[in-house]
């Protein structure tokens, strides 16, 4: 017997992953904000002696900031593309974002070697807590993006359900914003 095909009832869109990511991101940002706050307090107390034994170049931090700024554009490109079911551009945008993230990681490691800050010197623990914390946020964001990219490849995301890509974007933007603050607080202000 033929049955009439009824449209599925409209359900409110569940933005579970976006809300979850936003709340988790708030917690991570609180960690980083506290670390940066204590770094600035210690830097203020340290005065002219702060990093007097080290030379921290500005080239890498500037390039890192530029790299992440570009990645914000490519990440938004991915969000835009999946919302329009443009899967090719979604994969392309996510891939470029991951590439820029990898470039950031590479530059961070190069910078740590150049700066030669040791954990034993007074500035060491706070310097590494802040900069490695920011680096870990970017790495976590890359893992998140990679997972969402695989799920997109599996067809789980589309214009009807773009939450995974949008959630990854929320965390990625937060990572970029935190690095922007670290860039000013640690590298520009030295």
């Amino acid at each position: 017997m033929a049955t009439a095909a009824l449209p599925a009832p409209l359900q409110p869109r569940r933005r579970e992953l976006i809300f979850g990511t936003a709340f988790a991101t708030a917690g991570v940002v609180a960690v980083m904000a506290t670390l940066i706050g204590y770094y600035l307090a210690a830097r203020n107390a340290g005065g002219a002696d702060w990093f007097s034994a080290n030379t921290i170049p500005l080239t890498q931090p500037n390039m890192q900031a530029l790299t992440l700024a570009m990645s914000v554009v490519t990440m938004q490109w991915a969000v835009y593309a999946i919302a329009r079911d443009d899967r090719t551009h979604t994969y392309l945008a996510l891939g470029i974002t991951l590439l820029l993230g990898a470039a950031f990681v590479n530059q961070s490691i190069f910078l740590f070697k150049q700066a030669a800050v040791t954990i034993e010197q007074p500035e060491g623990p706070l310097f590494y807590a802040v900069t490695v914390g920011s680096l870990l946020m970017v790495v976590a964001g890359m893992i998140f993006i990679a997972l969402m990219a695989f799920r997109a490849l599996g067809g789980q995301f589309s214009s009807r359900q773009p939450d995974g890509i949008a959630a990854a974007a929320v965390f990625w933007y937060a990572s970029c914003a935190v690095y922007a603050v670290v860039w000013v607080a640690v590298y520009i202000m030295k």
Partner: protein
Amino acid sequence: MALTETRSDTDATSAGDRARRAPSAVEQLIGSGDHTSIGRLFIGFGFALASLSLTLWALTGVDALTDNGFLGSRPAQLAASAQVALLFLGIVPLLLGVAIAVVPLQLGSPSIAFPRAATLSFWTWLLSSGIFAVSIALDGGVLGGDETAAKLGNVSLGAVLVALSLGAVCVATTVMAHRPLGMRLAWVPGLSWASLVSAALLLVTLGSAIAHTVLGQVGRMGPAALATNFTDGLGWLLRGPAVFVFAIPVLGIAIDVVVTASGRRFAHTDVLQLIVGLYAILAFGAWAQLPSALNTALWTLFAFGITVPILGLLGAIGDSLRQGKPVVSPALILSIVSVLLLMGAAVTGWVQSLSLAGQGTLFGASPATLASAQTAFVAGAALLGGAAASLHWSPLLWGGPGNSVEGRLTVPLLVLGGGLLGTTLLVQSVVQLDGETTAFQIFGLLVAVGAGLLALGGLSALVAAMRATEDPAGEPVQGLTLEWSFPNPAGGGIGLPELARVTSPYPLLDAREGTEDKP
């Protein structure tokens, strides 16, 4: 292939079914993503570890009574560790457990958001709590003198905070994303709203605390440096305004208990939400970490301002009870007294502000004792609130009405203990001005009795929960909100398929009154 409703015998005993064995009890316990199971585990262990922490606090009182008779150089370490353990091993997980178990039910949802994350949160918390407890015993915990144990205490405390944050993410996301059709955020029940606000504040507060445990680890700090790290970096958690964060769900529990007891709707649920929101804003304390933040105009404003939402809630509760014909129950008494204890914490904040403002001229009360008094009041309020929740939602949580002897015994123990512990420390701070030690033995005795009564009350609530199925049958609860439409005891995975569109904060009352179709 057409599928008949009744499976054939061959289907039922297919090779796949034969190979699949039922999970054992341990596998079910560890692998369960059922929010009610996770919530029950959090609540049970929360009561147990809160009682353990309070027993430790009572021991420091006995030590003072006996003039440092048996704890040697460790009273300060044990008192501080007991307070930290009371917060993060006791009351925060207790209230988080209530939220994990009850909030999805209040929203008519079959599960919590990210159930595996909630499970991970519980087991990580339990394991880390065990390690923290061991480190306290080995002269670690916080302010400990043993190098290895102190480092262990720092790491395990960090893991506890991360685990609790993860649970908070699950609860907050549930409230935001699992509401049924028609239920606006302004219409969620009191506990759900308070849990959302609490989770958001917890994430920021605990996140900030985690940063200090990270610094302790990255800096490879020894016992002395870790002690300084605790005093300067984490001490703000044990005083206002931040300490009030840990009792935000208490406000929501009181709202829901009073609504059920009076059987009538609050006239302005939006005002109640504003009260809880204002309390949360004034409980945000991550900005006041440094000692320089104390005794500022903003800090004083926070210290006095928190009184407004607490008084507002007490007024709303009083008004609701006055207009209805409330059924007095242990849960009702506990929830009202828990809000009164929060008032005690607010009064302690006033004394703290006045003492700091008039330092050297007015009176010089001990900041450390005042902070302990505030912690005691807030922890007492949270423990009473948790016990009220456990008894109020007993049919859903434990499968019995919660009217046992143990349940009734919980009330005097917790009320007396909570009032005595906080009041004793408040009076002690005012009596022992400028570092005096007047009547320290009497205060030690009172602290021991107060903490001991609270510990017994926590245990009594735990026993009441565990034996709830044997309780004498009681009147079925005429609830107003969705959780009461679930079977007793509630289990995960069950939704409300016949749920009509929610049109007010009290859908079950609407259904009884036949007003569910009103816009």
